[in-house]
């Protein structure tokens, strides 16, 4: 399987190691790239256009570069950047799959991109149809009743979900008494932060020795002051919560709601559904499961789907199919209100919609099958090389630990991560989940070929045999070497102007 044939997505970043000056250092007074349309609009003196006390004396100092220099600068910056199109990104919990190029073309369509968000309903029928169909597909995938597409990211979806939870309890006269939301100790950091911003207190429930929620400990924490529980299933260890039906029953028995964090939805498409597990609220990360590219950290999209009893609380306005076959907006009668300036990250939603249409129900199921197969293959392949704290059938990701290597030779998870960069792979997620020491969380995704996954395993095996000294110096082949993060925080230089003044302490 690790023979020469077959495509591999690995590459040491291409770029030279030369420093790139900032655009401000490339500036030269009087140089320019801009040009504007000839409009024939009459001139006015500036003092007739702007009230005197508000007029700016000097223009905003931005940069002064030619278009040629500008293009060269940002092209060179792009050459100093790793990306999915260059090679694999086995980042656990992030689902860095290949982003089909057809979705880029959909997002660039003038009929979609050049539509004003406040345009009258008669002029936006195509957009509304797209959004309604996407909402229906997401409900089919999650087993829920209806969805909002407004939340622009996963964390925004979480907070939206918690506000839906509060609206439900408020309408049942229990807003004052239900104060706690339970989250497992393996949860993403956004979960507790969202709970706090939703106005709730966090109660942590431990994991048991199988890596799943400790159901007995959960029961001890359940009472009528619990608003709900936030779970990821499969959880952040990549393990399916086998007791989910029991968990759902217990939470519902005390009147709580179940929130599903969709970060790991890529594991279960067409296999099982949060709605069938008993979840009331589900958020999805379209920039993970549905191939919206990450853009270096965003934009994403974080739709939230809910069960029928919560539909009336969804943010409005919601796109809807009307009785006459046209499309319109609908404001749910008990809506929590808007969570976005407009209708969500619409072009990201269009990308995801086209990804779902192209894959279809059958293709989406294959996505999860192969994502899970790749991750299980890696567990089998690297067992014995790295510790596997929970060595049992995993879903779309697998958590290794470098504890054995740390004990034997002082090789830490961060060293493994930095060495992998030299080997032409992005590093896995490290030191997460927090309940695993020296964690290396690996998610190959379904779009990486067997050859790529094998090459990743070979690289991780080589690294495990490295001397720690060599690893401490890694990476040496990347655009910059190991970065001094402590200095960045100690001597803060957040802008070019702060740099010129020697940094701000």
């Amino acid at each position, binding site marked *: 399987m690790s023979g020469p044939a077959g495509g591999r997505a690995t590459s040491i970043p291409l770029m030279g190691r030369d420093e790139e000056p900032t655009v401000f250092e490339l500036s030269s007074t009087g140089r320019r790239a801009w040009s504007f349309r000839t409009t024939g609009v009459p001139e*006015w003196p500036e003092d007739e256009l702007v009230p005197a006390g508000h007029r700016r004396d000097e223009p905003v100092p*931005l940069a002064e570069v030619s278009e040629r220099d500008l293009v060269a600068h940002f092209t060179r910056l792009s050459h100093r950047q790793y990306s999915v199109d260059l090679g694999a990104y086995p980042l656990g919990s992030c689902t860095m799959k290949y982003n089909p190029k057809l979705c880029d073309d959909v997002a660039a369509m003038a009929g979609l991109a050049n539509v004003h968000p406040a345009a009258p309903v008669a002029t936006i029928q195509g957009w509304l149809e797209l959004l309604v169909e996407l909402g229906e597909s997401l409900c089919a995938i999650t087993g829920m009743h209806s969805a909002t597409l407004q939340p622009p990211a996963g964390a925004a979806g979480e907070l939206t979900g918690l506000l839906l939870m509060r609206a439900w309890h408020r309408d049942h006269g229990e807003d004052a008494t239900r104060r706690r939301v339970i989250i497992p100790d393996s949860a993403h950091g956004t979960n507790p932060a969202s709970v706090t*911003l939703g106005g709730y207190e966090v109660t942590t429930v431990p994991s048991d020795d199988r890596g799943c929620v400790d159901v007995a400990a959960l029961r001890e924490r359940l009472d009528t002051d619990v608003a709900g529980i936030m779970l990821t299933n499969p959880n952040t260890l990549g393990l399916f919560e086998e007791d989910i039906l029991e968990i759902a029953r217990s939470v519902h028995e005390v009147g709580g709601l179940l929130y599903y964090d969709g970060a790991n939805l890529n594991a279960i498409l067409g*296999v099982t559904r949060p709605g069938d597990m008993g979840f009331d609220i589900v958020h999805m990360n379209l920039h993970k499961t549905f191939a919206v590219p990450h853009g270096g950290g965003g934009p994403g999209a974080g739709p939230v789907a809910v069960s029928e009893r919560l539909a009336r609380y969804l943010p409005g306005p919601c796109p809807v199919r009307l009785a006459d076959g046209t499309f319109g907006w609908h404001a749910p009668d008990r809506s929590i209100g808007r969570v976005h300036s*407009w209708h969500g990250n619409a072009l990201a939603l269009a990308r995801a919609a086209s990804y779902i249409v192209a894959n279809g129900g059958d293709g989406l199921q294959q996505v999860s099958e192969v994502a899970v197969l790749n991750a299980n293959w890696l567990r089998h392949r690297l067992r014995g090389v790295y510790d596997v704290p929970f060595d049992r059938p995993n879903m779309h990701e697998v958590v290794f630990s470098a504890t054995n290597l740390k004990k034997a030779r002082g090789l830490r998870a961060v060293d493994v991560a930095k060495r992998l960069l030299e080997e032409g792979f992005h590093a896995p997620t490290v030191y997460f989940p927090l309940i695993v020491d020296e964690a290396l969380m690996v998610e190959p995704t379904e779009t990486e*070929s067997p050859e790529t996954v094998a090459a990743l395993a070979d690289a991780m095996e080589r690294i495990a045999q490295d001397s720690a000294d060599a690893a401490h110096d890694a990476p040496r082949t990347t655009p910059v070497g190991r970065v001094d993060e402590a200095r960045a925080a100690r001597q803060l230089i957040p802008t070019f102007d702060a740099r010129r003044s020697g940094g701000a302490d």
Partner: protein
Amino acid sequence: MPSYVPHTDADIAAMLAFCGLSSIDELWETIPSALRLAGGLDIAPGLSEPDTLARFERLGAANRACGPDLVCFAGAGAYDHEIPSAIRRLANRTEFVTAYTPYQPEVAQGVLQALFEYQTLVARLTGLEVANASLYDGASACVEAVNLAVAAAGRSTVWVSRGVHPTWRETMRTFAAGTGHDLVDVDLVDGTTAWPAGGEPAALLVQYPNHLGCVEDLAAARAVADAHGAMLLVAVDPVAAGMLRSAGDFGADVAVGEGQPFGTPLSFGGPYLGLFACRLEHVRRLPGRLVGETVDADGRRAYVTTLRTREQDIRREKASSNVCTNQTLIAVTCAIQLAWLGTGGLRELARRCARGARYARDGLLALDGVEPVATAPTIREFAVRPPVDSATVVDRMLEEGFLAGVPLDESVGAGDGLLVAVTERRTRDEIDAYVAAVERVIK
């Protein structure tokens, strides 16, 4: 259908065998059988790439997009600006588009440096010392500004001008249901905010120019804030900023805004870009990511996300913001366009918008029965009150080939009106034809 899964049947069989499994079904042994979805997803089978593209072309064609057949005079936070070819090409480079959050700085210097330049440009634009690496949109930037101010002041009341975009105010109200912040609406009088006398606000939030396009008196707002020991939060129009004294110049603590005008198409409202800048003294409460300059092991200049202890993944339930994924690609796009405009171009852009708006406003106000909604000075957007309902005007103007503007939301408290924006793209001929069409439809 296209498949983005490279595995052949033989590959899958070999991998299963390696795992000691004989079928895909055995991968699901930890899922209770009652939960297994029988019969797969209720979603149609996949389509080929050309069929998929044709389907979305049809959806696009079912819209009336802005362009020569629907000339855009609508704004209200979403503007029809020119996007230069260079920006389209650079912002679509796959190294930027398909990168992850720069958690491994050694292979993410491209995105990190672009964000560092973006932060510098936003700081200069707002006249403040530090800017973050982006938030979702104008609304989320307002939400985070209020969170910062309340955390710093230890008081939970914030005065919010009705001149802040209505959807931004609604979003703030939605999230205030979680935080318990008390948002108090402050009325406009003839187009600008009339701040009350009593009370103990943690902060004042005002938009500059505001939703009606009117230039707010920031010096007065600063004085009111000082009288209450409150912060001044200013939502700026980053295009008008090319001609206006900056928020920082008037003593704002935080400046927020919508960055869409710089390189992002109308996009039916997203993805857009939340601008967020503040004084350095507030940097430890700054929401979202921040990029800082440092050095690598060899002493070479390098960039990295910094002050990470502010962020949700480290602070968890003690975090004051839950932002993780932001709008990096839109921020990089904004940085490229601001550099393309440069020092001279931004001023020229603002001037051209202001001239077009003045010309259109004079034309509309010359029509019988059209009145200004407010007399306070405007820059690049303004509101008029037509003699017929403004929603009706917008509908009738569609037949004339114009997206005439955005009807005023009643929560602004300024009555009915049509909010009109004019960008540098609008020619004199278009504006003349627009005014003539308005004259026809209000008869």
